[in-house]
C-alpha cells in the first residue's frame, strides 16, 4: 500500500525506530547536548564520551519520528571510534546526501547511513534526519546551549 514510500521508509529505518541502538543515559558523559526541532517537537539528548579527540562512546535519549529516531540511532553507532575530524567529514557527506546539493554523492562512503538518502525527495522531512547531526556538531564544538533546527 505504501509502495511510493519504500525509498523513505526502508526496513532498516523501521528496525532502528522499533529498537533504537545506544538508547540510554550516559552517566559519565564528557559532552551532553540537547537537540530540538520546534516544527515537529522532536527532542533528543546526545551523550558523548571522549578520549582526546576520539569519540569512544555515544548514546541518546528522547522522542521523535521514525526518521529522526533511526537517524540518531544509526549515528551513535557509526561515530563510535571516529575522531572529531572524521565525524565532521561524515556530517558534511550526510548533509550533502540529505539536501541533495551534490550531483554525485558517494553513498558507499556513508555506509549504513545511506538508508536515509530517501529524505532528499521529502523536503519537509530533511530536518528530521539532520537533527541528530546538528546536535553532534554542537556537542563536538562543546556548545553548552541546546541546538535547534530552526
Amino acid at each position, binding site marked *: *500500500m*505504501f509502495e*511510493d*514510500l519504500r525509498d*523513505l*521508509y526502508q526496513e532498516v529505518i*523501521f528496525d532502528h*525506530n*522499533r529498537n533504537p541502538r545506544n538508547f540510554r543515559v550516559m552517566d559519565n558523559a564528557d559532552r551532553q547536548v540537547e537537540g530540538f526541532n520546534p*516544527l*515537529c*517537537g*522532536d*527532542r533528543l539528548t546526545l551523550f558523548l564520551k571522549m578520549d582526546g579527540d576520539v569519540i569512544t562512546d555515544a548514546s541518546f535519549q528522547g*522522542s*521523535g*519520528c*521514525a*526518521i529522526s529516531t533511526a537517524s540518531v540511532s544509526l549515528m551513535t553507532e557509526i561515530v563510535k571510534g571516529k575522531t572529531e575530524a572524521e565525524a565532521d567529514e561524515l556530517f558534511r557527506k550526510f548533509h550533502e546526501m540529505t539536501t541533495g546539493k551534490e550531483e554525485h554523492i558517494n553513498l558507499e562512503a556513508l555506509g549504513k547511513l545511506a538508508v536515509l538518502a530517501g529524505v532528499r525527495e*521529502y523536503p*519537509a*522531512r530533511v530536518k*528530521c534526519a539532520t537533527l541528530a547531526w546538528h546536535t553532534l556538531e554542537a556537542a563536538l564544538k562543546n556548545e553548552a546551549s541546546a541546538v535547534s533546527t530552526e
Partner: protein
Amino acid sequence: MSGFDVNKIRQDFPILAEKIRGKDLVYLDNAATCQKPQAVIDSIVQLYSHDYANVHRGVHSLSVRSTDKFEAARAKVKSFINATSDKEIIFVRGATEAINLVAQTYGKANIKAGDEILITAMEHHSNIVPWQMFCEQIGAVLKVAPINLQGELIYSEFEQLLSDKTKLVSVVHMSNALGTINPVKKIIAAAHAKGIPVLLDGAQAIPHMVVDVQELDCDFYVFSGHKLYGPSGIGVLYGKQSLLEAMPPYQGGGDMIRKVTFEETEYNTLPYKFEAGTPAIADVIALGAAIDYLVAIGMDKIAAYEAELLDYATAKARQIEGLRIIGEAEEKGAILSFTLNKIHPHDIGTMLDSLGIAIRAGHHCAMPVMDFYGVPATARASFAMYNTKQEIDVLMAGIQSLIEVFG
C-alpha cells in the same frame, strides 16, 4: 439530508479533482485552510479582468466600480455575522492581525500595569502571543483558565479568575487543536456582569456554524477569510461601534485620515480609521463571493452535515486499536485530533500523503495544548462541507495500513 448535496458542492471546488501522488486527493486539512469554490476564483478573475482600480479615491469609472464592490463585500460580512452596522466591520489581514490590533489600540487605551487579561489554556498562539507582547510592554498580567482532559474549559475556574483586575477576556470560540466549542454565551454573560469586554477568536468557528454577534453580545469577533473558503491575507475584525469609536487608530497612512497637515492629522470615521493604506481589494471582494456561496447553501445545513461527518469519523476512529483521540469535548466542531501508539504524527502525515490524504501533523500552533496532553504533536483530520464519509473510510483504512507497516 434535505437540500444539502455534497456531490454538487464538490463540483464547485476544482482542486478536489487533483491527483496527489497518483491518488484521488482527500483533503482533510481544512482547519489549516479551506479550498476555494469556483465562485471565489471567478470573482478574482472578474475583478482584475474588468473592474479593478483603487478604492475610495478616484472619480473615474473603474475606481467607482471597485469601491462599490468592495463596500458591498463589507455589507455581506456585516449581515453574515449580523453586525449592527457596516462601520463595525474592519478589514485586516487575518484573525492574527485583528487580535494584535485590539491589543495595541483597545489594550493601550484601557489596560494598565497590574491589570489582567484572561484567556484559556486551549488558545492558538495568535491569541496568546499578542497578549504576552502587550503585557510585556505595559506590565499587565496574562491569566490562563485551565481545561480538563476532555479538552473542555473548566468553567468554575474560569469564573474564579474573573476579578476586579480583569480588563479583557479573550477566548477562542472553537479550538483548532481540539475542536472544542466553548460556552461563549455563558462566558460573555459572566464577564459582562463584571463590566469586562470579551473578544472571541472565531477563526475556526466561522466556517462551521451560524455566528450572530448581536445574539452572542461579544464585544469583538475576529476571523480569517481563508478558513471561510475565501482568499488568504484577508480577515475581519468586528467590534461594537461604541468601542471602536473610542479606540485610537492602529496604523497611520492613507485612507485612515480625513485631513492631514504637518502639524496634525484628523482621522477618518469608522471603519476607515483602522484601514490604513490600499487594502486587499480583490481578496475582500472574493471573501464577499465566498459568503454569498455559503449563504446560498445555508450555514445551518453545513453545520448539521459536518456534525454527521464528525460523528462518523469519531465512531470509526474509536475502533482503531492504539488510536487516542485528543479532545473529546461534549460540544465539538468537525476536528479529529489523534495520536497513534508509538507512531509519530509526522510519520503518519507522510504516509497518509502517499495515499493522497492531506492531514496536519504537528503542534497546530498550540504548543501549550500539546504540553497539557504530554504529546509533542498530534495528527489532525479536520473536515469541511465538501468532505464525505467515503473519504473518512479512506482515511481510516490508511491509518490501519500504516499501523501494520510500522508493526
